Each structure stands twice: as C-alpha cells, then as structure tokens.
C-alpha cells in the first residue's frame, strides 16, 4: 500500500525496529497511527496522561501499573520505539519456526510476557515480589468488600505456593515456574485476532 510505505518512511530506524520486534510493516503502521492518535500534542513522545485518554484502560484494575510499565527507569516520556518494543512482548508467536539458540530470546516469547507481568507486580524493581507488593496488587484486583484478613491470607497462600527458597517473596525464577500456560496461549489468540 502506498500509504504504508509513506508512513513507514516517517519512522526512523524502522527496519531495525521490525527486525527486533518481528512486527510486519502493516502492524508497524497501525501502531504508528495509534501512537499518533494518542500523542495529541504531536510531540513524538507519549506521557502518562496520554494513556489516560484510553477509557477502557482507565477501568482496568491494574491500568496504572500497565502504564507504568511503559515508563521504565524513571523516564516520563516514551517514544515510538520503546512503545513498540513493549507491545512486541505480546505479539503472537510464530510457533513453527525452529528457534536458533544463538539468537537472543525472541521478544514475544513466554519468558518476556512473564517478565512483563513480573514488572507489574514488582514496582520497586528489586527483582522480588514482596508480600506487600502482592497485597497491593491483590487489593486492586478485588472488590472492596473483601476484608483485609481475607486478602492477607490469600497473599500468604500465594507466596507459600510459589516461594521455594522461603524468603517470603517471589523471585522471577519462582514466578517462572508457575504453570500459567493456558492463560498465555488463550490471550495470544485474542491479540492475534485483532
């Protein structure tokens, strides 16, 4: 499509981006359109409040954490490349290509998704999900009538089940072991169909 090419040419380093993330040109163009529509002031960067314009995201219980995940390492803007890189974690996988072990882990592998999810919990980025962090997330995902006690016991149990080294926190290694297979495949399909 002519317009695809013209849009692509607007994006700097687009080939590298495509290679890195595995998105097709059409995908990139769509993402770029989306980026532009969110970036109302045309600064080329997105700030957290721009994400606030997405209504549905506002009603997501962990919406602010998701937004926060885009703004890693203390920056308060995100440019198109970082935007796409993060979204690439959720690009549907091509399962049939045999993976070359020498290449770095593909961006959208299961591990990257898990890392992303881990980030959502671990706000202070110390590599562990502490009990308190878990409790916060739980609280935000549950209705208000659940009592503190109940939340606590759920959090305790969650840690107990996963915590192998008994440090009362979940590290990424322990998180990896949680059998989340079904959810990941199901959700992959949903993103793919869009």
């Amino acid at each position, binding site marked *: 499509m002519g317009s695809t090419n013209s849009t692509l040419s607007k994006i700097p380093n687009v080939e590298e981006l495509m290679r890195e993330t595995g998105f097709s040109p059409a995908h990139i163009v769509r993402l770029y359109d*989306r980026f532009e*529509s969110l970036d*109302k002031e045309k600064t080329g960067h997105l700030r957290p*409040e721009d*994400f*606030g*314009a*997405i*209504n*549905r*995201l*506002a*009603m*997501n*219980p962990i*919406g*602010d954490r*998701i937004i926060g995940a885009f*703004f890693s390492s*203390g920056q308060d803007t995100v440019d198109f490349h970082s935007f796409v890189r993060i*979204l690439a974690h*959720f690009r549907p996988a091509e399962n049939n290509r045999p993976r070359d072990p020498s290449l770095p882990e593909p961006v959208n592998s299961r591990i990257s998704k898990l890392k992303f*999810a881990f980030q*959502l*919990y671990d*706000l*202070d980025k110390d590599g562990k999900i*502490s009990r*308190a962090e878990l*409790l*916060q997330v739980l*609280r*935000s*995902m*549950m*209705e*208000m*009538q*659940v*009592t*503190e006690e*109940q939340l606590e*016991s*759920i959090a*305790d*149990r*969650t*840690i*107990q*089940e996963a915590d192998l080294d008994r440090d009362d926190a979940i590290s990424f290694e322990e*998180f990896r072991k*949680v059998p*989340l297979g*079904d*959810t990941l495949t199901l*959700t992959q399909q*949903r*993103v793919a*169909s*869009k």
Partner: protein
Amino acid sequence: FAFPNAEKSDLPVFAMNYSRIQVPFEITLWVLLASFAKIGFHIYHKVTFWVPESCLLISIGLMVGAIMHAVHEEPPSVLSYNIFFLYILPPMVLDSGYFMPTRPFFENIGTVLWFAVVGTLWNSIGVGMSLYGVCQIGALEVQDINLQENLLFASIISAVDPVAVLNVFEDVSVNEQLYIVVFGESLFSDAVTVVLYNMFTFVAEMPVVETVDVFLGVAKFFVVGLGGLAFGLVFGFVASFTTRFTSNVREIEPLFIFMYSYLAYLVAELFNISSIMAIVTCALTMKYYVEENVTQRSCTTIRHVVKMLSSISETLIFFFLGVVTITTEHEWNWGYILFTLLFAFLWRGLGILVLTQIINPFRTIPFNFKDQFMLGYSGLRGAVTFALVFTLPDHIVRKKLFVTATICIILFTVFIQGISIRPLVEFINVRRTNRNLDTINVEVHSRLMEHAIAGIEDICGQWGHYYWKDKFMKFNNQILRKILIKDNQAESSIVALYKKLELQNAMEILDTVSEGTSTAPSVISLRKEKGPGKPKRKFVAADLRKMHDILSKNMYKIRQQTTEYTTKHSLPNDSHTKEILIRRHGTIRRSLRELCVCVCVYHSESKTKLTTSLFLSDNGEDETLSGGGYPSAPRSRIGQPSRSSSRVSLPLRRLDTLTEVSSSAGVDLVDERSGGRGRAGGRGKSRLNSSSSDSRVPAPPCHFDSSEVFHGNRDSMPEQEEPLSLSVTWAEEPSDHDDSSTQNPLLRRPRWNPVKPKNP
C-alpha cells in the same frame, strides 16, 4: 354512583363519584400493586435469582385476573391501539435506547442489525408461510386465515424480548459480543415488528396482493427505517443544542430530554415512519452530549425517570397479560397453537444457524455453537408481542385465536425458557477449572495476566474498526462538540468518566463496605499481627476452598463495563467501575470552589512535583503550587448533612506516599497519618488547612473513623515497608452543590504523576 338522594335537593354532605375517577384510579392501583409485588420479590433474593421478573409480574397478573373473574368484574378496557402506541410503548423503547451501551453497540452494529432485522424478517416470513401451509390442512378448521393474516400474526410473534435472559448472561459473564447482540436484538426486533405489523395490517385489508405491492413493501421498509434514523438524529442534535443553554434552568433540564424524545416519536408517527427507530436514535445521540451539558443531578434524574416510566409501562403490560389470560374468552385450537409454537422455535433456531454461518466470516470473534444455542434460546416473547396482538383491528376474523396463541407462546417462553435458562447456561458453561487445591497463585497470576493483556489490547486499540471510529471522533471533537457542548474543553476521558460516575456516590460504596463487613475487628487484629516476625500460617483445605471462592466471586472481571449495563429492571450498576477508578486514581485536581469540608493540601516544601496534592484548580489555572503557598481559602461549603452527614464530612484522600514526602518538612497530613494511626475522632479539625478556616466539620466520629482507619490501614500499612504505595484519598464533594459556574463536581484535568521509585 351518588347516594340516592334524588328527591331532596339538599347539599349532599358526603357523596361518592366513582365513575369519574375510575380509569386513573384503577391504573394507579394496578401500578401500585405491581410495585408492591416487586418489593416482595426482592425481599428474598433467591426468588429473583431463579425466576425472571417478567414471570413474577405475569403471575401476579394471573392472580389478580383470577380474583376479578371470580367477582365477575371486567378489566378496564384501557389498552387500545392508540394508548399502547402513544403512551405505553415510548417509555419502554426510550429506556432501551438510553441505556444502550454505545461503544460495544457500535463496534458490533453490523452483527446486531443483521440478527435483529434480518432475523426478525426471516422469522416472520418463515413462520407465516408455514402457518399458511398448515392452514390448508382442513382438519384444523383454520382455512379462513389467509396469507396476509398469517404473515401478520407471524410478525407479531417474532418480536423478541430477551430481557429476562440478559440477567442470566450477566451473572455467568458470557462474552460481550453475545450480550450486546441479544440486547440490541430486542430493541431492533421491536422496531422491525412494528413496521411489519403496520404493513401487514394494511395489506390484510387488501383482498389481493400483487407483486408490485411486495416491492412497495420492501421500499417502504427502507424508507421507514432510515427515515426514523434521520428524524432521531435531528431531534437528538436539537436536544443537545438546547441543553447547551440550560444552565440557568437546571430544574427543568430533564424535561427537555423527555420532550424531545417524545416529540421525535410523535413526529415519526405522524409521517408513518418507524417511531421506535426515531426515539432510539434520538436517545443515543442525545445521551452523549446531554450528559456533558447537564448537571449531575439532572443526569441522575433523567436516568431514574426513564427507568421508572419504562417500569410502569412494562408492568402494566404484563399485568394486563395476566388478567386478560383469565378473563377473556379464548378461542382454543390445539392444532394451530401447537404448530405456532413449533414453528416459532424451529424457525428461530434455523434462523440463528443460517445467519451465524453467513456472518461469522466477517466477525473477528466468530460465534461458536454454544453462543448460537444461547442466542436461539434467548428468544423470549414479551410485552410488545402481547400488546400488538391485543390491539389488532377487529376486522381480523380470527382475532381471538391469535390472542390465545400469542398468550400461549408468551407464557411458554417466559416461564419455561426464562426459568430454565439459568441452569442451562451454567451447565453449558461449566468452568473446567481444576479444583486443584494448589492453584491459588495460578488463579491470581492468571487473572493479572488477563488484565495485563486486556490493557495492552486497549492500548493497541481496535485495529480493525478503529479507522472509522477515529474519523468520527475527529469530526466529533472538531465540529460537533463545539456546537453542542458548552464550555467545551478537550478533556481527558478519565475526567469524563469521573463525571459520569458521580464520585460522590463513591462514598456510598465506602459506607457499605465499612458498615457491613467485619472491617473493624479485622482492622484491629491487623494492627496486632503486623510485623515481620509473624509465624507462617498453615492452610487447611477448607481455607483453600474458601479462598478459591473468594477469588472467583470477588475478582474483577475483565472489562467490567459492558456487563454493567444490565437489565431493564435496574439502573446500570457501575459500582465496580467506580471502585476501580477510585482506587486507581492518582492525582485529581479539583476546583477550589467546589471543595467542601476539609481540604488538606499537601505541599512539600522541597519537591512539590512528587507529591500527590489535591491541587485545587480553578477553571484552568491548574498549575502546581510550587513551594509554599496554600491555595486561597476554599470556600468550603458543607454539603447537606441531611443527606448523609457522615459521608459529607469524610475527607478521604489519596496519598502517594513517597519517602520524599514523609521526610519533607511541610507536610501535615502525611505526618499525621504515619504517626497517628490510631487516632480517634478529631482528625477533621486537625487536618484543616490553616486557611480553610471556615470549614465546619460535623464529623460524626465513629463512621468517620472506621472508614478512615480502614483506609488508613489498608493503604498505609504498606507505607512503612515500601517506599511506594498508592493510596487513594480525595475530598468529599458537596452533594447539593449547584454552583452556576461549574456544575459538575470538581474534576478538571486529572494529572498523572508517575510514581517515581526513589531508592530507600
């Protein structure tokens, strides 16, 4: 009747004149009786859980009918054609149109229209033809029903009313698409049915139908439909435009809505185009703009009145149905009636199958068989069907037969299908979760993952449809909003959301939470057992089962919002969304003037941009208070204590407590909080900003405390352990505030302060 005082011409001291008031009196009594019945139903929750409300209403009608029959009383003959179409139908349709969830609707509009319009046509023609075929069978003695009349009857019984089913769908969280198709179908099938009804009544009078008439009929169909749409749009825009200027006549704002929609309906009736389409389109268009222009209270009023009116209408119809069932003389013809039932189901089932096959390729998420079954099964008939058949013109010879058949099909579908749908749906939707007791963390993590994915999808946007939507939104923002909305500022959607959700009602949520549950004891026990040296708890199987239970019942489902627009019988329940928003939101700036009671402004001498301050902005000067300087005294007006004294005086704030904040000098509240957690009552005063001297705080201590402490504990517990926590606080808004300058409470631009991790 007046007392017999015919001879004397004295002034009658006491006289009764029943006939004068009879009609309004009886109607009022009926409505009142039905409302009592509704109260009765809801007392015992299980009843409404298993039995849809329509069933209950019909049952009451049946009972009343039986009573009337026993005393040989005639039901008031109020239900005539005109009364139904001019007074009873509009509120019902307005209700459906007004509470239609617009976004899912427009995203699925193709499917909805496909099933509704084409489906209803399919049903009518199919059933009509089959019945005509049946009529040729001599044995059934129905040969005098000609094709037109059969078609007419068939179109009447094709009007679907799946309201009862929507309840069940919501509870079992069927997918959004299914939900919106069923919802939309009810609305549009009514429209189509009415059009067909009018067409066929006209045709039924004609002795011979020629092909040209068929073509004319089709053409008329389109004219009628699109005409209705156009009229609705026009009236919708005019209504929105009017509300732009109604700031000074707040009290009658709702009136405009109703008058305009009713006008749209009547004008459409005048031109014989689809009035249902007109009123629905009008409501859809209006809603978006009007809800931004009018005050919160007008908004609430409108919603409540719409619901009330439609409730009255529906009640009356069902009641009438029950009564008529018993009191009129029926013409019973086994063959015809059974065949009607049979064909109705058959054609609906076939129709769904065929239509789904055709449309599935065009859908991003195709319907599987389970969905199709549920679609087919939700074909209940309801109020509109009954009213239409009852008001058939009398020249239709077999009218009584039709009435009987219709009543049969309504009773059958409503009772049998309505009651059985819930167990069926649950049976089909059996969750195959492994009730493996080891999977609490899997449940938690997978739900988190699902939310994350949903969030990412929302960020990516709808890749397919979004082009048109974006175009429309641009047009909307640039042109329409400027014309139709007053004080148009491009606001972030979150603000709009907040406005819509009436944050003051958030307090209600907190009320219910802090009153009902065992918060207080748990809070106390909480304080005791905090501390890192807590012994590890052992969890018994029973505990785990309970946990699973809690999780499955209480975790927020993905994308709550659609299923919140539920039934006809209740207002949309957006309490979950509110809960989420309340908890989530970081910084909210409020207009100074709107603020009542205690406003605590955090200012940090050192670094203001880190703190979540409730900076009170005044219509646009919204910059942060850098260092020092409290905003000028909030003209804090205490909201009416009458409404909810406790609520009004509750200051609830959101703190982003960062280490910075707690260490900086000038912060009053934070210090208080981290320090005085157990403090009772008089927080109100102490929190006051020095300059907000005029705030009088009638803080009823216990209520204040429990929720305050509740919040305090919930939120501030992690405060100590983590440098970061997001706890929500916000200041109470006056419930009856009607400042002319800013009619909507507070929220201007919420600012998002990213939570910056500072290293401890």
